[in-house]
């Protein structure tokens, strides 16, 4: 009996507590920097697309909402000729970001992407690609990877050793 009265009193005191509700359209919630929202494709500091169209994001995606097609420039840079994310299927799990070897695909703290038509939720590469570097400023994939480009041979990368001459017997 006493505990019931105590419960009633405790509950009554809650009337004077601070509200937890965020009155959304007028008041926006504070999002964590690592919030998993709208997906973007970033560029490296020189303005080149980071994406090398390795398909790892599409393979990692549990709902198969990523579609892309690999292509290659004359310089030897791989890039997606199209990159499509169907946000009506996307579950914002962030597996694509985890799978990406070049920090190209990133999730951002933005969730306001409601649309009136379902097809509007299919984002093409022009909608996804941003002009900045996203969460990883200063990262250039081709600088640290042992991939040859026009103007950059094997062994020219950062902290990269000269390639081994496999025909030589010398150590």
């Amino acid at each position, binding site marked *: 009996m006493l505990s*019931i009265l105590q*419960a009633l009193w405790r*509950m*009554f005191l*809650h009337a004077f507590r*601070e509200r937890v509700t965020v009155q959304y359209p007028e008041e926006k919630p504070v999002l964590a920097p690592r919030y998993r929202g709208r997906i973007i494709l970033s560029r490296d500091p020189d303005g080149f697309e980071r994406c090398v169209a390795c398909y790892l994001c599409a393979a990692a995606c549990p709902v198969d909402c990523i579609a892309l097609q690999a292509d290659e420039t004359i310089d030897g840079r791989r890039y997606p000729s199209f990159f499509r994310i169907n946000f009506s299927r996307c579950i914002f799990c962030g597996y694509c970001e985890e799978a990406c070897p070049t920090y190209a695909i990133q999730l951002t703290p933005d969730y306001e992407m409601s649309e009136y038509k379902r097809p509007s939720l299919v984002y093409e590469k022009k909608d996804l690609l941003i002009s900045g570097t996203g969460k990883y400023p200063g990262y250039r994939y081709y600088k640290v990877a042992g991939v040859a480009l026009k103007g950059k041979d094997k062994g020219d990368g950062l902290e990269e050793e000269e390639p081994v001459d496999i025909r030589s017997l010398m150590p």
Partner: protein
Amino acid sequence: MQGVITPLVMMIAILVSLTTMSAGLIWMERRLLALWQDRYGPNRVGPFGLLQVVADMLKIFAKEDWVPPFSDKAVFVLAPAVIMTAVLLAFAVVPFSPGISIADLDIGILFFLAMASLNIYGIVLAGWASNSKYSLLGGVRGAAQMLSYEVFMGLSLMGVVMLAGTFNLREIVEAQEGLWFCVPQLPGLLIFFIAGLAETHRIPFDLPEAENELVAGYHTEYSGMKFGMFFVGEYLGIVLISSLISVLFFGGWLGPTLPPVLWFLLKTLFFITLFILLRSALPRPRFGQLMSFGWKIMLPLSLLNILATGAVLLIRA
């Protein structure tokens, strides 16, 4: 002619204000529950979200009036009407203030108890006619709960009747001119309050519609306005029990300075708020606990209360 029109107007006025009030209670309950759960509740539609009820009503009226093909159709349609009718009939004897009551019955309390018992027909019939296991379980639970709580609900009021010497609700209020019955009849008040909770199927005793085990209990198969009638009937029941608590134990319309109707309204609203606070604070017991609580604790207590009241009255006489 005059003798017919005045009661008719009063009846319609009371009917309209009661249904409006019970609809407004839906808003009030949602806002108060939110208040005690650190939320805001409906606050978008109209001032303070008051028009939320209007929006909900419009929606519920626009819904398809669907009767499940497996149900007993005639009874299925009848059941919600029974609930509404029984509760509204019980209001006939409630004295809102001197001069404002529909029927000044000499057996007012008995009439109220009879109507409150009739209420259960709606639940049992709804549970039976729905022809689904959850509804049936809800209906059976409702019947069992009503049987065991009706007994001491009546008994808890006998102390008041002994003190006032009448079954007439108006005279009971007038008998409280000096001292409200909540003081000499405190056990009676507590017992009646608990019985009233069970009678209206409010949260600690809402086993007939226990959502987590019975989907929605006896009104599982109902939708649209038929469900709305169960809903409004439940809120009307809360208003009824709250107004009876204030009439029987807190002197009804009695009170200084303010007009009598306002006093009645204030007291009733206080108990409605208490009902909602209880809902926000208490969990639901098992059904066995509910039954044993009724028969093993409340029934002996109410009998003891009658015994003590009778003894005191005899000694004084």
